[in-house]
């Protein structure tokens, strides 16, 4: 049987790992390669690494860093940040990364999704949607450039387009819940889950393993990603990389798993 995935999401800025709150105030939390080594020991299901300054700073992906990460990872790796072309995506896959995430480039030029999928296979194309809820009216809209640009686009409609263009996975990131550790935005996830039948990874808001349990309980096979939860410990947010051990993970899934 296929299991839900618990995915630490690491944010990279200026070659270091950071963690943000609502996409702001990046706090340095450590060295990426060191973190990967710890996550190897903890046997994590999958790892997601997003460079949060590449697109907004108009930078190329840091291929050297990606190569080092891919070589170190004993689990599947998804890389995102600054990917704008088919050639870049292909190069990243050739460096040994299983999945390439695109976001703002996919919004600018949706056909890029199909073009990349043709070269590297659909299974390796992840589209990340950074979503913000409007204060007035409560409408969900997609942002890019690390949350700085509001595209005004509807995430549900775009998710449908992403699916039809041949992406392999959709990652939904709630800007409002990022780093807040009060739980996922289920309202947002519901809307998108209903609209598409792609594998989905959800990010933004997990503060406890119970939050992840709840997500698994509602959606069964899902990617449950988290940043703060896996890098901070305690109310003072001390940096301590942590991840449930295989038994804890098993219990969490068994306790919450949908019986389909």
């Amino acid at each position, binding site marked *: 049987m296929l299991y839900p995935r618990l995915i630490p999401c690491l944010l990279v800025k200026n070659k270091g790992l950071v963690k943000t709150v609502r996409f702001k105030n990046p706090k340095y939390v450590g060295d990426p390669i060191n973190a990967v080594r710890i996550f190897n020991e903890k046997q994590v299901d999958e790892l997601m690494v997003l460079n949060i300054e590449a697109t907004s700073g108009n930078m190329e992906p840091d291929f050297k860093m990606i190569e080092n990460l891919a070589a170190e990872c004993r689990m599947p790796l998804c890389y995102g940040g600054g990917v704008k072309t088919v050639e870049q995506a292909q190069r990243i896959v050739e460096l040994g990364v299983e999945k390439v995430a695109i976001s703002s480039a996919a919004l600018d030029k949706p056909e890029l999704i199909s073009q990349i999928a043709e070269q590297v296979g659909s299974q390796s194309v992840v589209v990340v949607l950074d979503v913000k809820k409007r204060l007035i009216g409560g409408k969900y809209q997609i942002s890019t450039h690390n949350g700085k640009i509001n595209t005004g686009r509807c995430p549900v409609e775009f998710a449908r387009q992403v699916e039809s263009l041949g992406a392999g996975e959709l990652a939904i990131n709630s800007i409002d819940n990022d780093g807040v550790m009060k739980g996922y935005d289920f309202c947002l996830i519901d809307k998108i889950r209903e609209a598409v039948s792609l*594998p989905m990874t959800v990010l933004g808001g997990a503060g406890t393993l119970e939050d992840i349990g709840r997500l698994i309980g509602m959606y069964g096979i899902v990617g449950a990603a988290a940043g703060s939860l896996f890098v901070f410990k305690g109310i003072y947010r001390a940096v301590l990389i942590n991840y449930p051990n295989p038994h804890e993970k098993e219990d969490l899934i068994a306790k919450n798993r949908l019986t389909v």
Partner: protein
Amino acid sequence: MIAIIDYGLGNIKAFANVYKRLNIPHKTASCADDLEGADRFILPGVGAFDQAMQVLQRSGMREPLDEFVLQRRVPILGVCVGMQILAHSSEEGNLPGLGWIDGEVRRLDPSALSHKTYLPHMGWNDISPMRSDGLLQGLNGGSRFYFLHSYYFDCRGNEDVVATTDYGNAFASVVNYRNVYGVQFHPEKSHQNGIQLLKNFGNL
């Protein structure tokens, strides 16, 4: 000496790291000359079928590999797309495959999946071994591996299926014919179970 075939696809370094940790002699092979002296080959792969066939052809290693595998019977392990190109053809592409194991690559049937499952088949899933010698030594039913694919190897002969995995329908997740082995999942990204399998391949 295990040669990890570096034809520009798949995680060469991840395999090398595993073998380094295991203290098993290995090297990467990126041209025909590099293949000499190897008594095992690993054919990695991430990506699409036609792309894999094209870059393998371009690497100049395809013809020599034919001889190593078919004439000299050197064991080879295809991984993910590297497994799929062992077949004659694929619904994903138009180019012929290597044809070293009799079968065709087909798309997983989404209509056979319940509403709680999706394509691609992505994540950790169990294997059910038909036999537990050789490649799967020390790995039990329920051993978990990381999968990432929408296509599967449809073997013509059932005897070539070493293990199956359930996703909608059961499909062949480990195949073997003579000295040719293939795994649909990524052992290089499957923690301890993957290490065990790669160790087994080194000891075949």
